[in-house]
């Protein structure tokens, strides 16, 4: 048997087979003899640029994070359609952190060390992005953070190639707290999720209260991320008689909270404000359940009526994925455009050259003017307060919210460079 394999079916190597083999060998020899330079450039032309995408595709934020994946995919496809980036195709490599820190660390390592990504984008969770950043920092890979966190732009977590397209909870709280105090009342109760963003937002609110003695903190209830039942918190909240209940509920947590707040009549006892809301949460909760609830957001698709750049994002997104984009889709779209655009302008994957392209740059990718603060690579942008429309007033299929207020982008909303640990 062994002999047959070596000699072929007829037991000997035919002349034709021999000639084929000789030609192949000759080709290899000739290739080896070519100048090393041309071989490299051939390989370079074919070798794709690898963009790693770590998302939280399982768990309570799965829907929003999947929108981040979709929006990034759109930007990648836009580049690939026009011939790629630096003449090379972009390969988009996706991993799921499952919204867990250890899984995020593992998948980040896989992206960086096994897949050898050139550029990185992700995640949605304030805790998963920290794990991702640690790995990218170690290997000098530019990371575009597209979540809300206080850590990415702060020393020592910050890295020279770390960029943060999302709001920080600190900025969110400053913008929201001013609006709430002015429009909803001054007795505040907090429903706080036990996870990074929930805690960061709550702590930022506390700082605001310390600076504004007219506001009373009347109580706080904690819950675990991903909890399904919130009704047992309600009697205590009602007893505290707050003007406003401020919740850090996001994703599925917000859906369940909004539902139960409606069912138990909590909305009739106090005004309710969610630190952040987004389109898909409203869809999952249903119009009746989000009616009258206030929330903060950085983007809502109906902005396309007033902003031309929003239209250029919303229309193709909607056409491709069958629904308007969420705000988190917006972060990913804007962030991916900035990252890949910087590579294009730099004409190189050198992180130092990419950094120089972004620092201090003013841009408008999908929602009006934004800019990168030079010291910490934090994107400065406008912030909005929205409110769920009553079912009878709901506009179109996706018209869940009305925009009530806007806070203009301002570096004063964020901690100063010195406070964040940057000298000078």
């Amino acid at each position, binding site marked *: 048997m062994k002999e047959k394999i070596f000699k072929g079916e007829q037991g000997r190597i035919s002349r034709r087979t021999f000639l084929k083999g000789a030609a192949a060998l000759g080709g290899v020899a000739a290739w080896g003899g070519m100048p090393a330079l041309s071989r490299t450039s051939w390989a370079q032309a074919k070798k794709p640029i690898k963009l790693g995408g770590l998302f939280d*595709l*399982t*768990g*309570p934020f*799965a*829907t929003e994070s*999947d929108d981040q994946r979709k929006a990034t995919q759109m930007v990648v496809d836009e580049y690939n359609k026009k011939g790629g980036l630096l003449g090379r195709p972009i390969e988009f490599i996706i991993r799921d952190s499952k919204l867990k820190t250890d899984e995020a660390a593992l998948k980040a390592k896989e992206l960086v060390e096994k897949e050898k990504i050139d550029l990185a984008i992700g995640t949605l969770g304030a805790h998963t992005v920290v794990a991702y950043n640690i790995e990218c920092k170690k290997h000098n890979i530019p990371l575009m953070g597209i979540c809300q966190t206080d850590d990415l732009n702060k020393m020592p977590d910050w890295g020279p190639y770390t960029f943060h397209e999302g709001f920080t909870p600190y900025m969110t709280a400053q913008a929201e707290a001013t609006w709430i105090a002015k429009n909803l009342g001054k007795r505040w109760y907090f429903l706080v999720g*036990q996870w990074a963003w929930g805690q960061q937002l709550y702590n930022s609110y506390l700082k605001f209260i310390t600076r504004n003695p007219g506001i009373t903190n009347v109580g706080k*209830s*904690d*819950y*675990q991320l*991903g*909890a*399904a*039942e919130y*009704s*047992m*918190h309600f*009697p*205590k909240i*009602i*007893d505290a008689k707050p003007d406003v209940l401020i919740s850090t509920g996001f994703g*599925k947590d917000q*859906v*369940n909270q909004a*539902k*139960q707040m409606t*069912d*138990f*009549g909590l909305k009739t006892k106090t005004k309710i404000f969610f630190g952040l809301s987004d389109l*898909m949460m409203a*869809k*999952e*909760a*249903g119009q*009746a*359940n989000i009616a009258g609830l206030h929330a903060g957001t950085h983007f809502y698709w109906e902005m396309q009526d007033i902003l031309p750049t929003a239209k250029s994002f919303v229309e193709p997104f909607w056409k491709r994925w069958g629904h308007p984009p969420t705000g988190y889709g917006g972060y990913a779209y804007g962030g991916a455009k900035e990252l890949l655009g910087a590579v294009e302008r730099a004409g190189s994957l050198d992180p130092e050259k990419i950094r120089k392209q972004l620092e201090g740059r003013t841009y408008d990718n999908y929602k009006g003017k934004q800019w990168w603060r030079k010291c910490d690579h934090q994107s400065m942008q406008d912030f909005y307060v929205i409110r769920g429309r009553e079912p009878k007033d709901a506009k179109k299929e996706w018209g869940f919210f009305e925009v009530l207020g806007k806070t203009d982008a301002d570096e004063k909303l964020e901690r100063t460079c010195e406070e964040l640990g940057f000298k000078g």
Partner: protein
Amino acid sequence: MIGGISYASLITQLFMGLQIGLVYVLLAIGLSLIFGLMTVVNFAHGAFFMFGAYMGLFMMGLTGNFLVSLIFVPLATGLLGLVVEKFTVRPLYGRDLNYPLLLTFGLQFVMVESVRLIWGTTGFPFDTPSALAGPVNLGFALFPRYRIFVIVITVIIILCLWAFLEKTNLGLIIRGGTRDSLMVRVLGIDLSKIWFLVFGIGTGLAGIAGILAAPMRGVHPDMGVDMLIQAFVVVVVGGMGSLKGAVIAGILIGVVVSITTLFYPMIGEMIIFISMAIVLLVRPSGLFGEEGLLE
């Protein structure tokens, strides 16, 4: 007033605990039934719960009638349970406890991912039936009408199941099989048919829990994952295989969670596991469990 909390709040909180506990019970009894008779630790139970909610959504879309959906869902999930038992669990009978455990563990992922592929990662709202919408004033607090309906339905289901197990010949065989399956077989009874039926009933109960939970918690692919953990804790605390244990432990844990949340919300979720640890330290086989079932 106790610790700054009014008596009205305390009563409301107890009532909330009772209601949350009954949802645990509904999921735990199916799990307990399957384990008690078949010693199958059904890790896919949460997935059947989720499947029930999706089937409810499908049927609501088709008929618009909640009661029709409530009858259809346990039949559909029960039927799926029967198929699963016949083609996947049955070949593993007589083998070690770990075999069906690993099988159902994998099956859970298959079911959740299939649902994700078909209906997407985004969940769906499930409107409370209009006749049951809105809160009712109980005197001490506003309470959603729908949740009172869930309490009533759960109590009816528990009573029916109790009557079935205690008052019918089939129930007698199931109870006999739980205690000593070899002896029941010696008496000439084909236990494999009973196992088939019990798996169907157990998964049907998970389905009905799913559709009942949907108007309170929405419908999404991961909805069964957390519920499964809580249901397991209830079964373990109550005693593996004991229906009475599952009911009492479910209500007990619901009340403990609710009261803890009132005084110290930080450990509201954790208290479930603390309670389990305490019970297992004092009674290793749970409150009403039989010793040696897992050996």
